[in-house]
């Protein structure tokens, strides 16, 4: 369980950052919802897990939060990317793609005869 959670935590952070980059400032519910939708239902997410992840990113300085008012006049806490967060997203996206490419090459290798 521990191993999976770690991987999940890492990718979840990346997804959150990407979501905030794409949609701009957003509240926790919106982030969770968006992640689920983008995955096309492949990902089943406990919305609650988004909050510790958001907190971690905020503690690390990648995002910042502020109370605001939504379109339908509801008070909510809005998260937005900081400059450090943008850089982190860039770097992690790059890392992730690289890892993916390596793994893809690896997995497509033909068995030698």
């Amino acid at each position: 369980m521990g191993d999976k959670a770690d991987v999940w935590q890492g990718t979840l952070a990346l997804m959150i950052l990407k979501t905030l980059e794409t949609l701009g400032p957003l509240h926790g519910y919106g982030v969770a919802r968006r992640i689920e939708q983008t995955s096309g239902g492949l990902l089943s997410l406990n919305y609650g897990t988004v909050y510790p992840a958001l907190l971690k990113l905020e503690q690390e300085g990648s995002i910042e939060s502020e109370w605001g008012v939504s379109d339908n006049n509801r008070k909510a806490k809005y998260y937005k990317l900081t400059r450090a967060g943008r850089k982190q997203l860039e770097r992690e996206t790059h890392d992730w793609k690289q890892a993916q490419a390596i793994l893809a090459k690896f997995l497509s290798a033909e068995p030698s005869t």
Partner: protein
Amino acid sequence: MSFMRSMRALFWRLSAFFRKQQRDAEFAAELESHLQFHIEDNLRAGMSPEAARREALLKLGGFEQTKKNYRDRRGLPELEALFQDLRFGFRMLLKSPGSTAAVVIALALGIGASTAMFTVVRSVLLRPLPFKDPARLVRLYEHSADDKFPYNQVASGVFKAWKNESHGFSDLAIVSLGAEYNLSGQSGQLPEKVRAAECSWSLFPTLGVEPALGRTFTPSDDQPSANGTVVLSWALWKRRFGGDSSILNQKIRLDAKSYAVIGIMPSWFTYPEQRVQLWTPVYHEQSAKDMEVLDSHDFLAIGRLKPGVTEAQATAELSVIVRRLHDQHLDDPFVSKAANSLPLLDDVVGDIKTSLYVLLAATLCVLLIACLDVASLLVARGAARRKELAIRSALGGSRWRLLSEHLVESLLLSAAGGGLGLLLAYAALQWFVATRQDISRIEAIDMDAIVAAFILGLVLLSALVAGIASSVKISGDQVLSALQESSRSHSAGLERVRLRKGLLAMEVGLTVMLLIGAGLLLKSYGQLRSSNLGCVTDNVLTMRFSLPEEKYAQPSQRVSFFESLLERVRALPGIQSAALVRAVPGQGYAGDSGFWIAEHPPLPQGQGQYALARWADPGYFAALGIPLLRGQTFDEKARLDSPLQVIISESFARQYFPGEDPIGKHLLTIGRRPFQIVGVVGDTRFTIAEAARPMMYFPIYTSLYGNVPNEATLAIRSSRDVTSFAVPGQKLVEQLDPELAVSDVLTMDQLIGKSTLDASFDATLLLAFAVLSLLLASVGLFGVLSYIVAQRTPEIGIRLALGAQRGQLLRLTLVDGLKPAVAGLVLGLAGAAVATRMLSSLLYGVQPLDATVFAGVPILLLAVVGIACLLPAWRASRVDPVIALRYE
């Protein structure tokens, strides 16, 4: 970058420690808005209000759950738990202040004593000498030709040969032992006798020390033709010359001669002994002839090994040189045949090493006992709270939390004990340094970072020992049995009681070992104090002086000084007798001399005999009550070049004149001159810890080594308190010569006390530790037994109701308590039998397995332990069955 991010996060999490409620409320609001968003969406998708809310909560993964996960991420949960444990621990400890205080004091004593001893051991034994590259410094010795003295002092001629011919040392230095000077008073100061070291100029470069002021000797200072020069110790400079640097290059008077002060050594430097106040160049002080003697072993030699040369190699080369000298002088049995060496540190601390290690071991025993006491207290508390712990455990309290609570509690106790112990250690060290000025390197004692680390280690260790020993029983499979057990009060689980009894047995065992060690040392000290010096010791006052050679160059001057001094002292009212002697019994070795018996056939070549040599006035034997067994004392009128006379001691006569009358025979000694034996006197000991050795006495008024002796001890005997003669005695000396100082003004009892200081010190300290641990062990035993009795009260009530006799119950409880004590006793006796071997070098006239001590300690222990058990046992037998059965 990522490090910076985690640091930032850590800071955040730490700061989350504050304003918790506000942060909680904020997150609750955020979650609430989250749910509202979700519910609205669900409603829009056509769900019923209840279903919408339910789905939202489900999707969230639980409201409280999310909050907890969020909190865990927000702060540092481990830290918070620790704080909670600390608060809880404090409250628990304060709830029973009595036992908490007892435990803290026990730990403080243990930790304090161990810290103090460790500091001493570390400073004195383990820290390198403060010299340059001390590992390369060695002390050099001669190995005597008769093999009796493998570590003998060095003769000046042998040193000369080493210096000229050896290759293994980059520097060699020689120091004369026990030099003393009369330091004349200047501008009204009193004269003073100061301990000095006459050393070769190379002493300071060999050790690699620099003077604090001025310079040290040069080769040109260190020769007979040079002007007198002296280097002062820091202490003497401060005390006598007010720390005034203008003293440099000025003249002071030593033994009525003029010396230029050329340097002041730093305050820490006192080599070769603590008492040294000044240094003079030895080749200037001694005649050239005296520095070439091969058979008089009067000097200390040290060397600095060349890089790459081992001690063994260098010493082997020195041995070859000594061997050659030996073979060249086969007629002289006192020329050694080999060389020996020791690392300088070992040499400096040699005497005190064993006793310090013994004392350190003893303090660690006390600490261990204190820890065991704490453990049994915690076990008792654990037992009382067993039900509570079991319930918490059953409700899902994490086992780690329960254990950590326990550890935190013992950590709190140990920390309090450690803090108090630190103060105690500081006080103990002050006392130790003040009491034991005689230990070399005592000045090096101080508490530093390593000692602090040692204390911290001790505290953690004792917390662990106490905490773990008491909490091994908090394990899962016991939850059920604990719940069952405490559901109805009957006797506590067997396991738990067994654990506590095991702890007790260990405590008792350690106490027995300490008691036996203390008993042996005490008995040894008693033997030492009661051993007979061979003379009267009550109300005898001694003081030493030496006449400066320059001022008293003529034999007649010395004789008249001695005569008039004795005459005046004897005239003091209240004086019973007074005498002059080279050294009174118990004052030390002083000196020996080789001899041959004129009437006996010559000894085979290479063999020699020697005896301790003393000079004394004719009234000495009568004055100190040394019995004249045969013949008579010296001729009262013998002066200067009268016929040569000698008096021998009983053991001398027994050893060298078996079955013969020694009176009238002649000893060839002191320049092979014939001395006629005129009397035989009783044996006296030169030191209290050693049996009497053959001794010969020469008349003080005659020429011995080319002149009348110039140094002597004045012994005054009175029928009343003799210390009142100290000042009049000194005044008489001052009247005769205002420049002359006396030293070591001591009664015989003080003299003996000084030489038995080590023994009494070790014995007293060890006894204190032993009593302390006996006290701790009996308190522990008392506590455990009282607890067991309290636990068993209902059972005892039932037994009584069923007709058990009270006497029977008393016996039962007593046996219950005594059993672990006896087990511990057996363990302790076995341990002591092994451990006391370590003590054997400290014992005098007592075997390590001394029967009285090994029998006495168990009796004492059983008596004390019996008393500790009796009260709870008596209480058990007094239980009222009606009350006991209602006890629940």
